[in-house]
């Protein structure tokens, strides 16, 4: 695939309030940089992430969507990330089944102490999505200029 050198992907990162959002803050506190095309949306828990939101992001022009939550077993609400894990596994599998690049979606468990992991994960994810190029398979032409 031809990739425009100047093109950068749009990445939406959903972060749970208790672990991963704090982890993202920590990577800021430690001045660990990651690409600016990652934009974080705070949700109370990874289980708040409705598959609708992921599809919505792709429709509106996102090229990659990542969900970050507490490590399994550490959920602030005890069980939230377990549900999120099943839901996302099934959703990602379905997207793959429809022929949509599976590398565009990801779940990563990032604790409030893992600022470095957050930054590393984002760097790596942006790189992976950049390699894939623009999201064409789930875009909505009406959201483009």
């Amino acid at each position, binding site marked *: 695939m031809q990739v425009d050198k100047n093109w950068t992907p749009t990445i939406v990162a959903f972060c749970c309030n208790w672990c991963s959002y704090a982890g993202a803050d920590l990577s800021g506190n430690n001045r660990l940089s990651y690409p600016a095309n990652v934009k974080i949306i705070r949700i109370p828990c990874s289980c708040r992430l409705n598959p609708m939101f992921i599809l919505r992001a792709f429709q509106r022009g996102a090229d990659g969507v990542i969900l970050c939550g507490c490590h399994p077993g550490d959920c602030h609400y005890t069980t939230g990330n377990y549900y999120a894990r099943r839901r996302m596994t099934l959703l*990602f599998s379905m997207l793959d089944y429809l022929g949509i690049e599976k590398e565009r979606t990801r*779940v990563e468990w990032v604790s409030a102490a893992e600022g470095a992991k957050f930054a590393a994960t984002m760097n790596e994810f942006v790189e992976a999505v950049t390699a894939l190029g623009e999201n064409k398979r789930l875009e909505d032409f009406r959201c483009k200029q």
Partner: protein
Amino acid sequence: MQAVIKKKAIELLESGTVNRVLGWKAGEFFYDLTPAVFTTPEQIEKDFVYSVFSGANMSKYLIDESKKEGKVAAFIKPCDGYSFVQLQKEHRIVRENIYAVGLACDGMCDMREIREAGIKGVTSVEEDGETLKIGTIYGEKTMAKKDALLERCVHCKSKKVVDCDEMIGENGEENRDCGRFDEVEKLEAMSPDERFAFWRSQLSRCIRCNACREVCPACSCVKCVFDNPNSGIAQKAAASDFEENNFHIIRAFHVAGRCTDCGECSRVCPEHIPLHLLNRKFIKDMNELYGFYQAGADFESKPPVMNYTTGDAEPSIVYARGGDK
């Protein structure tokens, strides 16, 4: 079979066990049976039909019927039976108001299969063992019954009626080896590009008539998110490729774990989109990742999407599965 069922229906009405019977009503042709409520033995004598074209899953009608005055008799085929139980689990139907008669079933035919076999202008059908003798305005044709079966009957997952007050015929068994995931596997074996092309060619035909949704016993929402102007994703027609995908992905997701794989969505799709392949993908994944689960097979279990174990597979398992990029 039809005679026995009609006799039972009349008996239930006359004995006062029920005040009405949900069944299939004769149409213009031999195949166009319409679900209907019968209230008198005369109506049953005249119009009640049970044939290989009584494929419609009528459990969804019981949502409303079971809330009306008095008891209603319903005839439950094995595959309808799973929906029947699932709807009970979801508190959608009032079981006390239903007299359920289980029916042993050895497969229902699909008019579309007959037409696609090139048989046009059909006017009559006769079952002759394993063969269907089909009368048409262009002369008589024959076809093997197995070639005319509904997709869901070709891969019949169970001949067991889970819950009924009495059975007509012998209750059967589950068949986990029915090959219903073969098509899904075929798709999984394709490359993502091929899969994408396959689904585009299918879903781009969708006319958003909502037949799949309206017929689906799991889609029993008071108002669907796609119809609710406040949901933020309401849509009436697929105005872009995305909306076609979105509707079918979200619909499959919403029924995941509750879908009994009754196959009605594919049966009614006017564009013949194999929608069951979406639902089956979820079922197959759930079976493989979280253990075999059949919605509507019991009254207690939690659907896998509403359950978890601490040792579940990580979503990254998806990267390891499916074809390569």
